[in-house]
C-alpha cells in the first residue's frame, strides 16, 4: 500500500524562483495549463498542453529551457 508510485512521461515545469511560478498561476492564460503544483518551484503540466504552455510562455516574454526528460 505504501509503495512509491513511478510516473513516467510526465510534462513538468520547474522554475528557479518561486515567484515565477506564483506569477504563472496568477495569470489565468498560463494557469489553465498547470495541473498540480508539487512544490514552490515545481508544477505538473496538464496532459497534451505542453505546446500551448510553451507558446504562452514565449508570448509572455519568457525563454524557457526545454528538455525532453
Amino acid at each position: 500500500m505504501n509503495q512509491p508510485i513511478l510516473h513516467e512521461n510526465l510534462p513538468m515545469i520547474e522554475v528557479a524562483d518561486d515567484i515565477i511560478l506564483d506569477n504563472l498561476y496568477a495569470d489565468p492564460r498560463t494557469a489553465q495549463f498547470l495541473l498540480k503544483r508539487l512544490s514552490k518551484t515545481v508544477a505538473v503540466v496538464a496532459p497534451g498542453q505542453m505546446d500551448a504552455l510553451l507558446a504562452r510562455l514565449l508570448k509572455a516574454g519568457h525563454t524557457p529551457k526545454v528538455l525532453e526528460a
Partner: protein
Amino acid sequence: MPRYFDGDLLRINASELKPMARLWGGTSTMRKDDCIACIRHGLANPNRVQRVIASLEPWERNALALIKRMGGVIELHTLLVGIVASGIHPHRRNDVYREECVHSLVRKGLILAADSYSPGYVSNSYGSGSTLYTDERLLAHVGFPEFRPLDIHPMTTIPDTRYRLPSTVVLDIVGILQAIENMDGLRLTQAGQVRTADEKKVQRAMHWGEKGMEVDGLYFPNPIGAWVSAFRYSDLLALQDDNRLVVKESSASFAQRPYSEQVRLLLEGLIRSPSWTEMPEGYFYDRGDVCRGRLALTMTLSALPVDPGAFFSMQAFDQALFDRIGEDFSLDYLPQRPFLLHSRTDKEREQELAAWRARLRASWLKEERPWLESALTTWLYFLGLVELAVENGAVTGFRLTDIGRATFHPESQELAQAVEAGCQSSGESAWVVQPNFDVIAYLDRTSAPQLAFLERHAERVQTDRHTARYRLTRESVYQGLESGTALADLLGGLQEGCHHALPQNVIIELREWASLRERILVRRGARLLEFQTAEVDRRGDRFSALPAAAELTDDADRRSPGAW
C-alpha cells in the same frame, strides 16, 4: 526505394521473356521458368551486370543513367524527352514514333512498367504502363548521363551582366532550411499539401513577397511555392508519421557539403516539383510537362561547350534546345506529326514534314520561348547557375557560372574542386559585430558553415549584393541555444568570424539572455516518484522495492529532496 525485377518477371509472357533472357546468355528455346532463372542469375552477379552494361549502345546506357538520376523510376514521356535532350539516341525514321526507342529498352529487359499487371507492356497513355523503372542492380553500374555537345557559337559582344555570388545563393538555401528547422518541420494537409500557415511562416522568415519577389531586378513569381516545393521533392526533408516534413540534417551540417552539391540537391527537387511554374499567374501548364521541360533544359545546359567565359545568346540557345526536343516536347499541345502515306512522293513527304516543323517552331516561340526565358531569370539565376547578359533591361544571353558548370557536370571532380577553392573563407574578417547587436556579414568572405551559424543564431534583416545584415535578438539567441548551442560556442563562433573583439555590452547581454533561459525549465517527459508520506521519501530505503525505480535511484540521489 530500390526496385528489383525478380517479382515482376513472373507476370511477363514467355514470348517477351525470351528476348530479355538473351541479354543474360539465354536462348530462344528456353522455357519461361528457365528464362526467369537466367535473368535473375545474371542480375545477381555484379561482374555479369557490369559486362552487360558495357555491351549496351551508348544511348541505352544513357537512358539508364537518366533513370538513375530520376531515382530509378521515370515517366515514359520524361524518359523520351530526356533521351532526345541528351542528343545521344538512335536515328529516327520519318515514319516511326520516337517511343520506339523506349519500347526497344523494354524488349531488351532493361526497363519494365512499374506497378502494372503487365510489366512488359509500356504505354504512353496515362495510367498503367506509363511509369517505368529499372532494377537497382543495373543502375548500380551506370554512371552519369553523357551529352552530345550542342552546335552553338558564343556571343561576340557581351553587354552588362548579372550574377549571384555563391555565398548569396547558399545564404538563401540555408536560410530556408533553418526556417523549416525552427518551425519543427512543415505540416501537411490531409491531401498532402504543405499547410498555408507554414508556407507563410517560411515566407516571413525569408522576407519574401506573397505573389512574387525581385532578385537583382528580375521577377520571381511565388517564391515560397517554388522553394518549399523544391525542398519537399529534394532529398532534404523526411515525412514523419504525424504528417510533418522535417529536415533530415541540420542546416549547420548541410552547410558543410560542397557548394555544388547543395545547389544540385535543391535543383533536383525543383525539377521534380510539379506545383510551381516559372510563369506569372494566368499561364496553365500540364504539371508533368513543366517537370519534363526543366529536366530537358538542364540536360541541354549540360551539353553546352564547357568554356568558362563563353556567353551564349538566348536566340542561339533557344534554337538549339528546339532542335533537340522541339519535335517531342511542348508545354501545351504538340502539333500532330503528319502521317506520311506511302502513296506520296518523297518530295510531297518532305513538304508535309517541313510544314509541320514550321508549325512546331511557331508554337514553340509562342509557348516554350517565354517559359525558357523565365526559367533562366528565376530558378537558374536564383541558384547561381547562370550569369545573365542584360541589354536595355532584357536578357539577351547567358553563361554557366563556375557552380553552374560543376552542377551540370557532376562527373568532373576538377570543376567541383575549383568551385570549392573559390568559395573558401578568405581568412579575413567575415563579419563585424556592432554594439547595437547588428552583425554585418561580408558575403564574399563568409563560408557556408559560417552563414549557417549566423542563420541559426541571429535574425536576418536585410541582404544586399555583397553583405547581409543580421541582428542578435533575445529570441534568435534563444532559438540558437534551444537548438543545442552552448553559450560558450555562441560567443566563440561570433568571435571566430570577427577579427575585432566583440563589444562588451553584446557579451554581457548574451550572457544575461542565456541565464534567463535557465530560470524556467520545462520537461516534456519527466519521470516522477510519488511517495505516500514525506517520511518515506526522506528514508529513501524503499526505492529498491520498485523494480523500475532502480535506474532512477542515481538520478534521485543527485537531486535535492524538493527538486521535483
